[in-house]
């Protein structure tokens, strides 16, 4: 059984999708069975959210919008988890004062 899901979220982290957040994002993504992809625009190009090489290469900056889509048994849970991680500022308590 395969479902699809998608969503988007604005990156609020100080520097954007840099090394430490990217490590966290890809680790989280690998926990899902679904194909999970992210993009900087709704039209793509879409990159594998489980690959740090590809995620870093997007060079997504602060205030940019991250688009997320997934296909697979746990697609909705995967998209929700990624959006939640970005909203929580990647669990980094530094609040960007």
């Amino acid at each position, binding site marked *: 059984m395969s479902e699809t899901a998608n969503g988007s979220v604005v990156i609020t982290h*100080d*520097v*954007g999708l*840099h*090394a*430490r957040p*990217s*490590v966290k994002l*890809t*680790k989280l993504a690998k926990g899902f069975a679904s194909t999970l992809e992210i993009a900087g625009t709704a039209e793509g190009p879409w990159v*594998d959210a489980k*690959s*740090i*090489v*590809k995620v*870093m*290469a997007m*060079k997504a*900056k602060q205030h940019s919008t991250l688009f997320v889509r997934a296909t697979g048994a746990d697609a909705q849970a995967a998209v929700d988890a990624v959006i939640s991680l970005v909203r929580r500022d990647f669990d*980094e*308590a*530094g*609040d*960007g*004062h």
Partner: protein
Amino acid sequence: MGTSHQGTSASDGLFLGPPRRLGSALAERQGTGSSEGERAALQDAIALSVTDLAVLMDRVDGEAQDILGFQVAMLEDDALAAPALSAIDSGTPAHVAWSAALDGEIAGYEASEDDYFRARAADLRDIRDRVLRNLSGGESSRSPSGAVLVGEDIAPTTFLETDWSAGGAIVLMRGSTTSHVAMLARARGIPMVVGMGKLPEHAVMIAVDGGSGTVLADPDDLQRAAFNAALASDAQARGLEEQFRLRPATRRSGARIDILINVAGVEELDHIDLSSCDGIGLMRSEFLFRDGAPLPDEETQYRAYRRFVEWAVGKPVTIRTLDIGGDKPVRGLTPDGEANPFLGLRGVRLTLAREDVFRTQLRALARAAVHGNLKVMVPMVTVPDEITRCAALFDACVAELDAQGIAAHRPPLGIMVEVPAVAVMPELFDAAAFFSIGSNDLTQYVTASSRDDARVAALNDPSHPAVTALISKVAQYGRGAGIPVSLCGDMASEPRHLATLLDAGLTSLSVAPARIARLKAAIAEL
């Protein structure tokens, strides 16, 4: 006869040994000739690199650990090697394929208009070279013990990976006395000379005098004998001094002098016996703010500060708030193109102008203060109002943390005495919880001479009577007003200035960890 070459001293000590060229480890490699063999060789080299990094990660902390964690994640991602593997399948040798694939990635980062992403190119180069070294016969970047590392510059990871158990030295053609590696070298007592310009290419033996910055290439028998004699007498003197390391510093009269240490990176703490010092007198927080790297967030800073405070187990730890500007630029924070950066926006002037950055640091400090005996000092104070503003900001940060339910404590706030305006009239600054005399900048400002300019270096003398008169004045005022006074410049670690400082009434000195034993031995004589 060997040729003598003059550089700049970055860390004291004598060492004689064979040179090892940094960056020359990328040996020639013959491919195995088959795509299967090349595929396996590359995969093995990547796996070995991950293991190397995991070992190194156990030895570092904070930002260094994050950087290594990122490198491991990149290496573990199949997407990194995929283009190289497909080139190997069409007959390219592994090392050529890997270099080409990584060079493509590196170029992508270098092309970024964003400082942060551009700085990641260095990580990718580090990854590329580590795998190449492991491909070419497995000779790792770890240098054999007892060698003189010679190169243009040296990465902190190279220093951390080197086995220094049989000694060694560092000689750099460029490099800097204020680099992270120079700090690490001083902490470990590894002789280091920077700014050499040139050294003979094919020297087989090198004698390094870190204290004078002199390097002798291929010394003849006579020179070698003289050097060995100096080494022996130095070793003997050090042996005598060593007996003082773990004892309290005591003058002939029996009076106690507090000896604290100056540190930057948490890595330094691993090699320091806590019982050899009375605490940390100066932790330079700017070493968390590396040029070209992103600004460390509150969590990163908190974790780093907490490490220092916990290491000291109740002994005082004085962390200096961000002291950049002057000779320590950080892109995006320090102003560009200042005509005279030492008289410009630096130290507390800069942090008060960048309240966002300052608040993040003060919040991290207030959180770390919960874990031990933390004190905080601000650099470059010139007028009393700066203390008032810093204190108000600090109080606001603590109140904010309280409101958020985050454990925090407002540590005592002291100041560096390095601007002559403060040293001339310390009585205007009694809002400070303590004074820490920064003799390097005080000397530079009082004598109007830079220590970085060899042509005026002779004028930059901390024993100039005008400088020592100011130090006495501050010490006396502090004693009378009940404000603790310490001195944390290089002057404190020079035994020839010691009598002057003790006569001035100072009872607390903060020095590089490698100077502790020598300083205590000298104090016992006075």
